[in-house]
């Protein structure tokens, strides 16, 4: 009985903790495993890091996002003691490239996950997921509905776009967006030593109409994604630490970006195009008006 009461309290704790991301205990019980309809909306909110970001900030900016990741999330991170440096997992970007031509391309991501040289046997049984956050520059967007079908096809745990998801606006009338993908990393991964896993994602992206440019093209850069891993501990009712994974230590000097060259209108065309457009429209109008008035016959010829 007291165990049941405790379970309920831990459930409430879990909701708070999961909302803060990686902070403190994740206590599981049979109640947590079942999806209660009343919780489903809340569970959608807390599972995304970007949801938490956009609750605090109106738009996506690199500086505010990096501050959010470094400071506002850190209080939710589990403690990693110095002696645990050889433990845990490491996430790194092995490949970042843009596949395809034109306005519709795919961002090809290859993420490497490597467990440490030492396992962490003292941890309870856990289930982990890799979280990839791909910030998109202005000028490019991801279609949320396309991502939905991609999620079903690829079997990702969760996938969503946050920020400006308007598909139609040109870049100079829109704001940035970001895609968050959750991929199942398996169970009890922290018990394993030197285990590697590769995650491949092909993210479909689309170019917006760019601001006018004299060169006729606009070049946008897409950087590496941010990566984390979140583990849910099962069975225990006390606080457990989750692991926060940053990119490789030696990756600080390796900033990889891909470039996308998108056609843009030229300012020099503006006057000429407007004048010729209106002249053409006028000529067509005059032609149709003349034809209508000249050939709108009415009577049939009376046959002899």
């Amino acid at each position, binding site marked *: 009985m007291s165990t049941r009461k405790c379970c309920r309290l831990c459930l409430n704790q879990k909701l708070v903790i999961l909302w803060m991301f990686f902070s403190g205990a994740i206590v599981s019980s049979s109640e947590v495993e079942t999806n209660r309809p009343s919780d489903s909306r809340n569970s959608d909110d807390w599972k995304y890091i970007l949801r938490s970001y956009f609750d605090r900030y109106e738009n996506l900016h690199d500086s505010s996002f990096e501050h959010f990741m470094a400071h506002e999330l850190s209080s939710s991170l589990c403690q990693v003691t110095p002696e645990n440096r050889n433990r845990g997992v490491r996430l790194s970007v092995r490949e970042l490239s843009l596949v395809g*031509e*034109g*306005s*519709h391309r795919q961002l090809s991501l290859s993420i490497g996950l490597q467990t440490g040289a030492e396992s962490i046997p003292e941890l309870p049984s856990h289930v982990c997921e890799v979280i990839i956050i791909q910030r998109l520059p202005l000028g490019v967007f991801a279609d*949320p*509905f396309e991502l939905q079908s991609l999620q079903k096809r690829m079997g990702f745990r969760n996938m969503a776009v946050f920020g400006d*998801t*308007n*598909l*139609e606006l*040109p870049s*100079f*009338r829109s704001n940035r967006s970001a895609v968050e993908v959750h991929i199942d990393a398996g169970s009890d991964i922290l018990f394993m030593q030197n285990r590697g896993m590769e995650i491949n994602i092909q993210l479909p992206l689309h170019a917006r*109409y760019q*601001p*006018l440019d004299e060169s*006729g*093209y606009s070049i946008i850069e897409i950087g590496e994604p941010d990566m984390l891993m979140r583990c849910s501990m099962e069975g225990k009712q006390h606080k457990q630490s989750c692991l926060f994974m940053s990119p490789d230590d030696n990756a600080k000097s390796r900033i990889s970006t891909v470039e996308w*060259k*998108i*056609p*843009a*209108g*030229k*300012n020099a*065309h*503006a006057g000429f*195009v*407007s004048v*010729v*457009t*209106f002249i*053409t*429209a*006028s000529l*067509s*109008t005059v*032609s*149709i*008006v003349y*034809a*209508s*008035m*000249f*050939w*709108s*016959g*009415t*009577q*049939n*010829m009376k*046959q002899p």
Partner: protein
Amino acid sequence: MISLKPGSIFLISAIFRVGLILYGEWQDAHMEVRYTDVDYLVFSDAASLMASGQSPYKRTTYRYSPLLAFLLIPNSFIAGSWGKFLFSASDLFVGLFIRIILKQRKVPDHICTYSMLIWLFNPFTFTIGTRGNCEPIVCAVILWIIICLINGNVVQAACWYGLIVHFRIYPIIYALPIVLFLDPRFFQSGVKPLLCDWTSDQGKIRQINSQVTNQFDAWIAFKSIFTRSRILFGLISGSVFLLCTGFFFQLYGWEFLHEALLYHLTRTDPRHNFSIYFYHIYLNYERDLSVLEKLISFLPQFIVQLVLVFCFAKDLVFCFFVQTVAFVAFNKVITAQYFVWFFCLLPLILPWTNMKFKWQGLCCILLWMGAQTHWLLWGYMLEFKGKNVFLQLWMASLLFLAANTFILILLIRHHNYAPVFRQHTGLKTKQKKCE
């Protein structure tokens, strides 16, 4: 000469459409390029939102009446392709209505058959319904309105007209010709109007310049605008429109009004499309266009519509056709689905044209398709190869407008202007005069 019975034609068309829908489902499931129109997914999502008691406008880019989402609610519990079957059925109804209209005007059977085939087996039209585009519903209702009008059923025509303008804004352009068409000389209380029949002399009739007569008719029409049938039509259609709009505004608020109505009235899309205005809009998008600039771009559309209406209102179907072609050609945004708006009217005007298929008709078809293909090639280079070909694409859109204008003028030139109605006379005569 084709000797297929209408029943057989409809049966083959129906089987063909069912087959296409089933193929479309297979392609969607097994190939990366989907057969289904992306708009159909938008309708379906909106319908499932409505089914769960939510606003269909929670689905981004849903810019239609809630009626459409309502019609597609069975997508959620019968089958995902319910909507496609509904649209394809409407497609078949368009074919049926084409036959009904032409038969009522005593068009010979073989010409009726050809006209039906032009619609039912036009690759553009049968793919549009089977891919999940809702335009066939609009076409079917427009044709039904024509049937109601030619049978003198003003009240029913008005009800459907109010409904369809709520559903899709563009039929508002037919308001003035319908009002002019409801001539008191033909629409008399309690008397069914007399139709002007098609005759085999159509091809031999020389068109004469009746500019003066037309202007006189238009002036009389304008002076006697407040007749019973006109007032009735205006009041009923206006009431139905306001009722539907008011009802859905009550349910879904400003979001409905903006997405379903105001968006279409103010839409300027800078992205490439067939319209000659797209590049002008893109180049000036960063600064807002002045009121004068917006007015100037609207002027050609306005003038053309007005002139076409006053010249051809009595020949209602032809008037609808030329108005629609011009409306689409001069619109600020043109997408391929708009073409079906006049495709459904084309079979209704062909029995009255002097233009022979060989070779003028064929040249017109090739010219129109050629201009479109030319635009599509540049569009492909821009969108799928990433080349800066904005200028070439814009020039292709100018050529497309030129092609549309040329073909429209040819059709006007070769059309045997045939008012739909003739006046009731006291004398019985076998010779039918349609003056």
